[in-house]
């Protein structure tokens, strides 16, 4: 039985040693080179002695970053990718929560990392391979050993580190690659940042299937001609992108002057796909397979999928679909009971795909990863997504928004109160309230107080990643209130 994702790498390196596995705009790496590089990094880390603590990675968007992840896996640690372009206060928060063994960087970081050793990639990448030590580490690992920690937005400004084991990752990747019918001839194009959950497809599908991933630079997604030109040059056949990436390209008029000629398989996830956007893609690529996916980071990227089997209408809502192989998806009522057929309830997930919880955060882990309240007879861990949904008669899950104030924006789950916390940190802000306009995909912020608008925006930039900073900010004399004293968010949504 396969129990470690490195078995996929070793098998692929044996079968396709000289085939390119990852490529960026500057260089490429073959399966064999990747294997050797990962073993060298793993050996360099292993000689430092093991603790249970993870190793953080702060590197750019390139092929060696993935080699670094896999090297850390060889050393028996979980890797924790951190976007080094986000504000330093947020990086510091994450590092404090993580308390890493070491931080692996491609250049010396400007932030302080208390108690962790800074390791420069170039200085350890040539390390001698210690085969016996790597074997010993592998022998001690199980399929529930942690693989990675990926950070998502958390309420009250505390990011959550979702920690996931080998078996959950392998479970999802197998299901995804099978459903998308990916084989060794496919060429994938990665849109997701490497520190974000969606990148696990681009990283691990090639190891399982022997295919290749091209890492597209982020700025190409603002330049449709450049993006499609690259996709045609690289003969990209398969993508798994955020819904908003597809929607941005459609809004930029990308198909007016070209299209990705070789693209045959398109999967999208992260937010609800508007019918008119999907229709435009379907018309541009009439032969391609289109698949909608649904699920949070906590169930390893996705738990349901829907293979679209017809040309959709502009106003059609696209269902979340049916559970992936080896996922159990069901609904719970507000009081934790069963939901009648057709009724709406909280979407809950069980099975091998569940994460191990939130790293170093017992309180939030216990609130979301719980015993199935319908099962009184044995331990059955479920994840409560906080998403609301219902099942159609044909078994398709439909998504109906959130129980709380979390939103999905540009493919990321964002807690609106994390944004409010960041705004409140600006001097002279008395109150702040964030609302989301899903039609225009815009986060809006209203505040009261003495602060001038620019200072509020600059302050938010200091602690939030760019996509979370509201693009519409308005100062009010005071925020509207409900009778119970809470901010009237519905009224704010109606303000222009």
């Amino acid at each position, binding site marked *: 039985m396969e129990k470690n994702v490195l078995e996929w790498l070793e098998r692929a390196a044996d079968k396709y040693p000289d085939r390119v596995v990852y490529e960026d705009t500057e260089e490429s790496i073959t399966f064999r080179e990747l294997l050797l590089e990962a073993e060298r990094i793993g050996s360099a880390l292993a000689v430092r002695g093991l603790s249970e603590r993870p190793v953080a990675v702060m590197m750019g968007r390139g092929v060696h970053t993935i080699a670094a992840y896999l090297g850390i896996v060889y050393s028996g640690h979980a890797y924790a990718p951190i976007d080094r*372009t986000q504000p330093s206060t947020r990086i510091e928060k994450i590092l404090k929560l993580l308390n890493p063994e070491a931080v692996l960087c491609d250049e010396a970081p400007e932030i302080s990392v208390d108690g962790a050793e800074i390791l420069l990639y170039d200085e350890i990448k040539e390390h001698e391979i210690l085969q016996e030590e790597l074997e010993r580490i592998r022998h001690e690992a199980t399929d529930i050993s942690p693989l990675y920690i990926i950070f998502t937005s958390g309420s009250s400004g505390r990011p959550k580190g979702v920690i996931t084991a080998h078996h959950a990752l392998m479970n999802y990747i197998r299901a995804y690659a099978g459903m998308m019918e990916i084989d060794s001839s496919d060429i994938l194009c990665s849109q997701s940042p490497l520190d974000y959950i969606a990148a696990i497809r681009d990283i691990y599908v090639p190891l399982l299937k022997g295919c290749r991933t091209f890492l597209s630079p*982020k*700025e190409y*997604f*603002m*330049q*449709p*001609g*450049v993006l499609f030109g690259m996709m045609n040059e690289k003969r990209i056949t398969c993508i798994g992108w955020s819904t*908003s*990436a597809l929607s*941005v390209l459609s*809004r*930029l*008029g*990308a198909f*007016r*002057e070209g299209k990705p000629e070789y693209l045959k398989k398109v999967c999208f996830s992260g937010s609800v796909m508007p019918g008119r956007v999907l229709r435009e893609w379907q018309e541009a690529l009439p032969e391609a397979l289109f698949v909608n996916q649904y699920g949070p980071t906590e169930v390893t990227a996705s738990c349901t999928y829907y293979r679209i089997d017809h040309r959709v209408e502009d106003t059609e809502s696209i269902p979340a679909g049916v559970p992936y192989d080896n996922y159990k998806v069901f609904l719970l009522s507000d009081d934790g009971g069963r939901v009648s057929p057709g009724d709406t309830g909280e979407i809950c997930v069980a099975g091998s795909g569940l994460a191990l919880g939130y790293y170093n955060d017992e309180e939030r882990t216990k609130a979301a990863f719980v015993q199935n309240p319908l099962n009184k007879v044995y331990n059955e861990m479920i994840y409560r997504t906080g998403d609301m949904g219902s099942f159609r008669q044909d078994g398709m899950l439909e998504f109906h928004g959130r129980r709380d104030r979390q939103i999905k924006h*540009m493919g990321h789950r964002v807690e609106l109160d994390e944004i409010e916390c960041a705004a409140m940190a600006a001097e002279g802000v008395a109150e702040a309230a964030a609302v989301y306009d899903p039609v225009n*995909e*815009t986060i809006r912020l209203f505040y009261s107080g003495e602060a001038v*608008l*620019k200072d509020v*925006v*600059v302050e938010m*930039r200091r602690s939030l990643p*760019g*996509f979370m*900073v509201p*693009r519409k*900010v308005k100062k009010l004399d005071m925020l509207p209130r409900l009778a119970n004293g809470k901010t009237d968010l519905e009224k704010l949504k109606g303000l222009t």
Partner: protein
Amino acid sequence: MREKVMEILTDLRPDVEFETEKALVSDNVLESFDIIELISRLNNEFDIEISPKELTAVNFDSADAITGLVERLVAEEEE
């Protein structure tokens, strides 16, 4: 014209120093949804239509480049 472009840019992203920034797209200073909003405002303000082939780093990396693009498109509209 440059003044109006600057006004739109500053309103869109009050935190960016558009007078000195020279890699708005190349360095990902602007996000893709900033570009969508920017194009829609430029199209409306100057009564032009920025086509997808104009969406390149060269045309959008600085306030001067954006002004240059707008001037060219306005001139083409008038022809």
